[in-house]
């Protein structure tokens, strides 16, 4: 697991309201199917920005961006963060 993945999982654990599920999540699991609500998703979005010290552009603030751990990582990486935490 990369540092980025670990940080995303930590955000999901604190803000995702997913209960004990986070530890057993696969990187391509659909987080919405695992119980991520829209309200929790917005909190995850804000916490991801804090954790990586980035501001996700409006165009990426969609449900698709936060559907899986992989998609969150891809977004974070696409914003220029490729080597561990910001």
């Amino acid at each position, binding site marked *: 697991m990369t540092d980025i993945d670990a940080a995303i999982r930590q955000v999901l654990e604190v803000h995702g309201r997913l209960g004990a599920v986070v530890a057993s999540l696969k990187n391509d699991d659909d987080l919405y199917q695992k119980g991520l609500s829209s309200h929790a*998703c917005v909190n995850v979005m804000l916490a991801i920005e804090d954790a990586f010290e980035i501001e996700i552009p409006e165009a990426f*603030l*969609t*449900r698709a961006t*936060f559907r899986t751990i992989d998609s969150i990582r891809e977004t974070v990486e696409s914003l220029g963060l490729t080597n561990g935490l910001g």
Partner: protein
Amino acid sequence: MNSNDFRNQLLEAGVLVDAGSPGLYHRSADYESVVRALESYVREAGRDDNPQRLFFAPVINLETLMGSGYVGSFPNLIGTIDSFDGDMKKLGEFRERVDSGGEWFELMSHTDVALCSAACHSVYPMYKGATLPIEGLYFEVQANCFRHEPSMDPARLQSFRMHEFVYLGNPDGALEFRERWIAKGQQLLGDLGLVLDLVPANDPFFGRGAQIMAQGQLEKELKFEITATISSDTPGAISSGNYHEDHFGVTFSMSTHDGHVAHSACFAFGLDRITLALYYAHGFQLEEWPDEVRERLALGQSSHFIEPT
């Protein structure tokens, strides 16, 4: 007809009287008789569930507004209430500013009340921490609601009546309730000669995260609107059926009888929008509305509104 023409005709016919702000009107006795007839008409349809019936004040506790989640999601639509709470010294300055046309607003203090956001928002705090009965709880509620969206389109009122049926209980019960009321709502409104459509919808969330919230509502089919022409040829929502999942159950720590987080659903009749839609469809003279519509609403048969002497 466009909404401006319709507005002018409503004002000309005396159905509405301009109250000085966009989207704010005094209403005629005829208009009000339709609102009250609608209230009786939908109440009849809700009797099967034997709901607890409550009529809320136009002003709600600030904590209730906070608990609804409305403040964060729609800060642009809410209305909080300020009043003067200063000492005599501050009062002097306050009066001076009022008299001289100065900035007196900044000397006001926040109160612990706010304008009502939606009728059903007052239901959930009443059951904070409660374990619900196995059959769930049913409500019929009404409130004067406020939305800060000033507009010249009469379909977009700043102050309007919302009549809602609400269910608290388990997920299956909530979905069944909403489906049942969407069907019932379409039947009731269609019987009034309105041409309807049923569309998946999302609330107008505000700011960053708005798209995520809206897409979530649509993807999970949490909100459906019954639309009709209200003030122009472009249809708008006159009713909506909403499944809140566990949003209010989590916020107010409500549980089902078997220990799960409670789910909720509501079906809202927008009494003012339906009234306007009826005027739009049937004209400005109630006597000229189709007989079957007048009969269904019992217009002219009994007095829903007693005019002051």
